């Protein structure tokens, strides 16, 4: 089947799902204050965003997300490159790193709150840990997966030290580093939302939690749509950027897990 044909078909089933939802609501089977129909939800969402309330929470979440990610990025890539290149460093740090990798980082929230207090720094630091561990592990894996023959070829052409790293090793590991960033960003979004659900007054996580607790169904659904769109944009947007930056790299679909 032609790709254009398939991509136009991709809209069919979501549109049908929305129509069925609307019809069920119109027929009175779904009660609007329990499951608000799309036709009411759309205007409500616009109003919430335009009125600034939901917009403000979105900005807070985006701010936390980007800071958590950026703080982790450079240290994680540097450490990952170091771990990938030095066997001794890897042996020394892997037990610690692997145990951190296996702990759901949200479980560290109480400890971080204990040490740093309940404030903005705590929320961001807990989310940073997630990005950091994920990107370190992916970068290390990327360096380790670099084809030996490529390195040998580079050496035979006279590349050593910095040149070997800059022109051979780093570009070869780049796709894995990028995948790590993508997974890291996805995980960080999960963590930011989780932390906001648990311990914050502001942000999309806090907003959706309050909406659920006060039975404000329209707010609940609106926030869900915004969070979903955010996750969606990050996931597919970064995949696109990756394809654009590294066209030689085949797209991978299954790695977008959260």
């Amino acid at each position, binding site marked *: 089947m032609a790709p254009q044909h398939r991509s136009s078909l991709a809209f069919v089933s979501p549109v049908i799902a929305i129509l069925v939802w609307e019809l069920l609501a119109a027929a009175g089977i779904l009660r609007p204050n329990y499951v608000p129909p799309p036709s009411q939800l759309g205007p409500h969402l616009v109003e919430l965003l335009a009125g600034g309330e939901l917009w403000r929470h979105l900005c807070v979440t985006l701010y936390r997300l980007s800071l958590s990610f950026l703080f982790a990025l450079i240290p994680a890539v540097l450490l990952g490159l170091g771990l990938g290149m030095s066997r001794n460093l890897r042996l020394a740090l892997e037990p610690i790193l692997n145990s951190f*990798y296996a702990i759901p980082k949200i479980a560290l929230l109480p400890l971080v709150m204990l040490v740093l207090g309940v404030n903005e720094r705590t929320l961001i630091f807990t989310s940073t840990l997630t990005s950091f561990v994920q990107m370190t592990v992916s970068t290390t894996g990327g360096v380790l997966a670099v084809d030996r023959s490529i390195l040998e070829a580079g050496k035979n052409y006279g590349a050593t030290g910095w040149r070997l790293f800059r022109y051979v090793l780093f570009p070869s590991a780049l796709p894995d580093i990028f995948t790590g960033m993508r997974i890291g960003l996805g995980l960080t979004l999960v963590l930011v939302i989780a932390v906001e659900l648990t311990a914050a007054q502001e942000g999309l996580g806090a907003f959706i939690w309050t909406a659920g607790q006060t039975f404000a169904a329209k707010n609940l659904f609106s926030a869900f749509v915004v969070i979903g769109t955010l996750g969606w944009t990050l*996931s597919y947007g970064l995949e696109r950027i990756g394809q654009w930056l590294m066209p030689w790299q085949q797209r991978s679909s299954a790695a977008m897990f959260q």
Partner: protein
Amino acid sequence: MISSRLLSREVTIPLATSLLMFAAWEILVHTGMLRAAFFPAPTNIARTLLSLALGGELWLHVATTLGRLFASFLLAVIPGTALGLAMGWRMEMRMATDPLVRLLFPIPSIAFFPLVIFYLGLSEWGLLLTAAITPFLLIVVQAAAAVEGLERTLLEAGRNYGATGRRLFMRVILPAALPHLFIGYRLALGVGFIVTVAVEMVAAKHGLGGFLWHSWQILRIEEMYVGLVLIGLLGILVTYGLEALADRLMPWQADLLRLKGQR
């Protein structure tokens, strides 16, 4: 021979750094450079762990979390595998469901929680369903990709040997897709564990997440660390235990399932 293996760098360096870290921690606490109120000495944590373990209540929390993880995994794995395989196998099925799956998949797993408990209340089902959604989607995506990615020659060979329909599916497609399914299961279990703990922290009395949160709230710091240690151990079991199992079951696929090979 044995002594030389035991003294090799693979064993000595990780062991040395781990021991060094714990020793430094212990010493820093005792000299007062690390505040014991924040970072209790490892020996104190171990002692608390031991007394709680003998008390029995701790095991209830461990069992609750494990039970939830297992139940939500079952909720995800059976329909997820079935739908994913069907999507990979039948074009019509794929066209009908793929867009919906792609729409839902990137939504942060924890965001489903407020929505689910809005309908189900703060019930056990609410927790289980929340922890099952993203693993379910992940398994669907992975299973569909596994069948789609099968080599055509394999299918042709199967057909040439007379396998059709059910036989082709059971004897050729399923075994060939199994390693990829397994990757999906492993990732799903990891995600399920994260969501289970998060949900327990927010909303459950029992389970390790609830225990952790409760001990932080009443500032029983040693108990909080015990909770953290147990969550870590379970996490290690979930992350690396399955990897070891896969090595056993499918030794020829060992590299495929490596943690570091996630791309």
